[in-house]
């Protein structure tokens, strides 16, 4: 046991002496979280709204005030004609415009109903459809209150049309960070655990120190296990770092059980360590280990884990392939626990599959491990 701790201590020294790598390991997740959380967001912000309203309708002006108060829209001002609105849109002064028909507020309470047109600059179709959706939901909810009041006062009149009531479950503000956080966790933890462990084991092979270690009474498998403990610790630190950033900076609430969320992450960390161990048992050079972990493992994690593209829209063959990606199961489980907040029995599948994968990887690594040089 003393031998084992000597190894663990040595590995920690390696990690702490290599401050640059350590900084990257801790800094990279921070940067990614901040980038995906703020900069690369698919949310809409600071949308400029123009107005065409023939008469200074009081309800319309109140509506515009409300729109202006929302954190997504800024009311830019009124324009006299549709041509002016188009001109303003071309100049980039406004992104979206509301055009109210003549006598809007009076017709609102009439059986024919009133009309409002939402005109959006669709150069960015994603943004345009989101702007339209947001605006229509604001408008309808605003007038619904009015109409309900009116209906109560004179129930005989059958006015008020059917207004669709949209509800975005689990992510009412459509924040992209809800989607990205589990994905980034899957990516970063895989990177630290598989890449760093395999590289540090293969490094010993490359520099020749493995030769000396093998010709010692230490059980060779302990050499490898001792490598994992420090990276397990680093991975846990990164996990906590990501969670803190997510909760306090991105303000994504953890809906489900904290305990199960951590447990799922730990299973995934162990699974990734197993992958790193298997890679290190098979390859001989650091560059090959880096390529295998970096290209063969990370790229599929990005592509097939549902982090960037929805799996459901892929061809069946690729969907089958995606089932083999460990990160896919982790990301799914994290989404369910963290965002949807479902009880753990709905993620037993994911947990069992990840555990099975971890067992397979470790078994393969132990079988492949060679305590000789050839």
């Amino acid at each position, binding site marked *: 046991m003393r031998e084992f701790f000597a190894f663990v201590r*040595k590995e920690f020294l390696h990690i702490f002496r290599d401050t640059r790598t350590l900084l990257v390991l801790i800094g990279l997740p921070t940067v990614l979280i901040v980038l995906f959380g703020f900069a690369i967001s698919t949310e809409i912000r600071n949308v400029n709204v123009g107005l065409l309203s023939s008469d200074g309708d009081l309800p319309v002006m109140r509506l515009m005030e409300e729109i202006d108060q929302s954190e997504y829209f800024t009311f830019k001002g009124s324009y006299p004609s549709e041509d002016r609105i188009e001109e303003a849109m071309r100049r980039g002064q406004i992104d979206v415009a509301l055009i109210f028909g003549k006598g809007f507020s009076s017709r609102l309470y009439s059986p024919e109903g009133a009309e409002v047109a939402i005109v959006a600059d669709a150069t960015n179709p994603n943004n345009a459809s989101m702007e339209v959706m947001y605006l229509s939901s604001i408008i309808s909810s605003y007038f619904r209150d009015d109409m309900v009041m009116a209906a109560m006062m004179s129930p005989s009149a059958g006015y008020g049309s059917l207004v669709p009531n949209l509800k975005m479950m689990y992510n009412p503000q459509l924040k992209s960070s809800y989607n990205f956080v589990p994905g980034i966790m899957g990516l970063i933890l895989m990177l630290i655990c598989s890449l760093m462990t395999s590289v540090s084991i293969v490094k010993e092979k490359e520099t020749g120190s493995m030769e*000396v270690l093998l010709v010692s009474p230490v059980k060779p498998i302990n050499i490898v296990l001792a490598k994992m403990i420090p990276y397990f610790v680093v991975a846990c630190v990164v996990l906590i770092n990501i969670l803190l950033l997510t909760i306090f900076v991105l303000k994504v609430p953890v809906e489900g059980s904290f305990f199960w969320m951590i447990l799922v992450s730990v299973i995934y960390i162990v699974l990734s360590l197993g992958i790193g161990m298997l890679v290190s048992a098979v390859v001989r050079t650091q560059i090959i280990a880096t390529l295998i972990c970096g290209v063969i493992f990370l790229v599929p994690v990005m592509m097939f884990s549902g982090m960037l593209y929805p799996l459901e829209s892929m061809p069946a063959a690729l969907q089958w392939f995606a089932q083999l990606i460990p990160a896919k199961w982790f990301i799914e489980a994290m989404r369910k626990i963290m965002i949807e907040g479902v009880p753990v029995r709905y993620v037993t599948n994911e947990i069992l599959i990840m555990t099975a994968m971890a067992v397979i990887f470790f078994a393969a690594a132990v079988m492949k491990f060679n305590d000789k040089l050839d």
Partner: protein
Amino acid sequence: MEVSGSENSPIVIDSLVKTYRKNFPPAVHLTGRMRIGRGELFGIIGPDGAGKTTLFRMLATLVTPDSGTALIEGMDILRDYRKIRTVLGYMPGKFSLYPDLSVRENLEFFASVFGKDIDVNYGLIEDIYCRLKPFEKRKAGKLSGGMKQKLALCCSLIHSPSILFLDEPTTGVDPSSRRELWDNLAQLKASGMTIVVSTAYMDEADRCDRVGMMKAGSFLAVDSPADIISGFSRKLFSVRSDDMFRLLKDLRSIAAVDKCYTFGDSHHIILKTGIDAAPEEICRYLTVKSGHSGVVVKEIKATLEDCYMNLEER
């Protein structure tokens, strides 16, 4: 020297063969049985690519031989390799300590790998380590070549092995550090340790009890340096002139010359068996027939390197 035929030789090597790739000549191809006695300092001498490292790795249980076997302290390198690893000290050719750990940390780590404290066997490494002591806090990667080798030696000695394998410990080390290292080995040998050391430098072989001269995977000769030299029965001359390059060509064209090779700042020639000549005769021949000036011919005693060059041809 204690070359024993007894059963308790710490190292018995029995016709080890190792081929790395098919259709390639074997890296090591030994025939017969060879014993290395307790407390012996055995040198394996040969140029790069002679198979020294492969032989070491097989003896250190790191590489499995294709055929043949070896016994280390009576234990088979194939079956009992785990047990062998507890009695062995092994220092590979490449610098294989951790450059980002300090001198002291390296030593502590290797001691605890073997479940030992530094203090227990400190006496064994004291003479070597005292030179490293001032640099204890320095990172191993920042040491000079000689210092690195000293530290590596300390690390492979810290668990007090009964057998020590050193693969080219003096390669890339300055002459004074080389001498110190051989002094250290002599001390260790005096304490009863069996030491096998390989080197590409012939001049170091004199420090060994016995040497095995290795070439292309097999031993050309295994004997004490003195016996190898006294077994050299041919006449050997050292030849110099003002035009050394042309001299080599001219010497090789003489019918009576069996072998001619450059040796330091002169050429050495061996005459064919049965032909005898005085140095003056050769000198006159070279001056008159080949037109060389400043010719100096001396009959000399063979060194190990001369023996090696001659053994090669067999």
